[in-house]
């Protein structure tokens, strides 16, 4: 076994963090480095980078126990706001969605719904579910990534907001596929959440409409 830590190359410059591909004691890993942002002042920057790094690492470790596919965390370096995690090979769902056939779309979105339901049942919200934050591996497994905005919550409102944000992303980025995909997503969500024997999922899904009606520029008669 190699005992080296090597950052080989940058593979993605995200909004918040840079991802480097490399090796960590012989394992293929990603170094997720939350970069200092020059646009914001030191006090705000430092606070955001440290809290989100710790928050994400804790969340990844925790939710992995529920059987959701997320990258395994190997090392946390809060001082340099870096997480070392397992490298997941695959494609961002955003980039392949339009080329998928209906069967595959249904399968993946069912699976995403199931994963989010497991998160929610256990009192977690992701808060940034987008098709850029979902990876499909060559073996057709669905991985959730980017837990930087994750929160602990049992509130129906927070869970609905989570679903609402995902719906918005589907509409804005995948307008043509939105209905089919979101319905498949909700189907997976309902099935998994329903296993707990309560009807909480109904409240959560119905509450999406209430959240939308609170948005800006909604006709007053459409308000609930």
């Amino acid at each position, binding site marked *: 076994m190699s005992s080296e830590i090597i950052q080989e190359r940058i593979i993605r*410059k*995200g*909004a*918040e963090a840079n991802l480097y591909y490399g090796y960590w004691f012989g394992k293929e890993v990603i170094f997720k480095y939350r970069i200092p*942002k*020059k*646009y*914001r*002042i030191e*006090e*705000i920057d430092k*606070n*955001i980078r440290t809290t989100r790094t710790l928050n994400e690492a804790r969340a990844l470790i925790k939710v992995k126990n529920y059987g959701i596919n997320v990258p395994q965390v190997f090392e946390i370096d809060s001082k340099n706001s870096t997480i070392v995690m397992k490298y997941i090979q695959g494609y961002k769902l*955003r980039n392949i969605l339009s080329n998928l056939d209906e069967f595959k779309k249904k399968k993946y979105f069912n699976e995403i719904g199931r994963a989010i339901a497991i998160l929610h049942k256990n009192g977690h919200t992701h*808060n*940034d*579910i*987008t098709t*850029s934050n979902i990876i499909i591996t060559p073996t057709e497994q669905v991985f959730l990534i980017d837990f930087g*905005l994750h929160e602990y919550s049992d509130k129906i409102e927070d869970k609905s*907001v989570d679903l609402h*944000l995902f719906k*918005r*992303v589907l*509409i*804005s*980025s*995948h*307008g*043509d596929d939105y209905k089919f995909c979101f319905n498949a997503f909700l189907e997976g969500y309902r099935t998994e959440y329903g296993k707990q024997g309560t009807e909480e999922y109904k409240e959560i899904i119905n509450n999406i409409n209430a959240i939308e009606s*609170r*948005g*800006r*520029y*909604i*006709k*007053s008669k459409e308000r609930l």
Partner: protein
Amino acid sequence: MKKLCLGIESTAHTFGVGILDFEGNIYSLKNDVFVPDKGGLHPVLVKEQHLNNFMHIIQMALSEASITIHDLDLIAFSQSPGLGPVLKIGALVARMLSQLLKIPIVGVNHCIAHIEIGRLMCKLEDPLTLYVSGGNTIISAFESEKYQIFGETLDLAIGNMIDMFGRDAGLIHPGGPKIEKLAQESRNYIPLPYVVKGMDLSFSGLYTAAKYLLQSNGYGKKYNLNDIAYSLQETAFSMLTEVTERALAHTEKKEVLLTGGVAANKRLQSMIENISQEHSAKFEVVPLKFAGDNGIMIGWAGILRYQAEGGHTISETIIKPKERMDQITIPWRF
């Protein structure tokens, strides 16, 4: 003679009239801005001022362009979104002119007009737009036939929030430019709530916290108004910049456009410019004259819609105070 359009902006504090031709050459721009003695914008008071002044503003615009009212070929007006009573004045004037002069009329969404005038002025093809003003806080880009909203405020608009704080601090409306000045005098940051959900923002907690600082015991001792102004601006603009950057990474657009009244803020400009460079995107701020509410932007968006779909019938010119811009197809973009 080139075809001429008269655009009427009447959604909030500004009654604006602009005259331009169908190629985008500008002949005149006149604004009348409502400034409250105290408090914010009361729709009825704003409406009354616009009603009293619209003839005068139109006449000034016509004489600046050295044309008569009979040279016009199209009337465009702001149909949505905005304060109901105020929108009605613009619609009323537009219908009247259209019927008297027997020329077509076209209603325009105010937010779309902001983006379109930005594209024209800054010569951009397909930008990600951050539209920040007293009434709106929107991160938008064109996708699937519409100007989709990727992120927006969940409660207060950024300009509204800053103006409200300004009033609490005893500054005269509008507070934005004064807060910007005060903030330059301080480097003492007081931590304030930073709320970002996905690409959406919330400013109400930030406003309340800043307001409490004004009332707390430490005010005038541990920190002064400059420090609160500085902290408020840094926190709010960092939030805006963060979600803009996230939308930029998500949409992978190559251009960034900053518009709306708050776009005049130099600190915000430098922050958005910084992230644009990080993502190798071209950054442009709409020239101040056209970034705030004005008649030219309404005229230009009206021309685009008229050329794509023709004019509206009078019954189609009903005002829509609550219309969202992501519900409107943009035929001239595809």
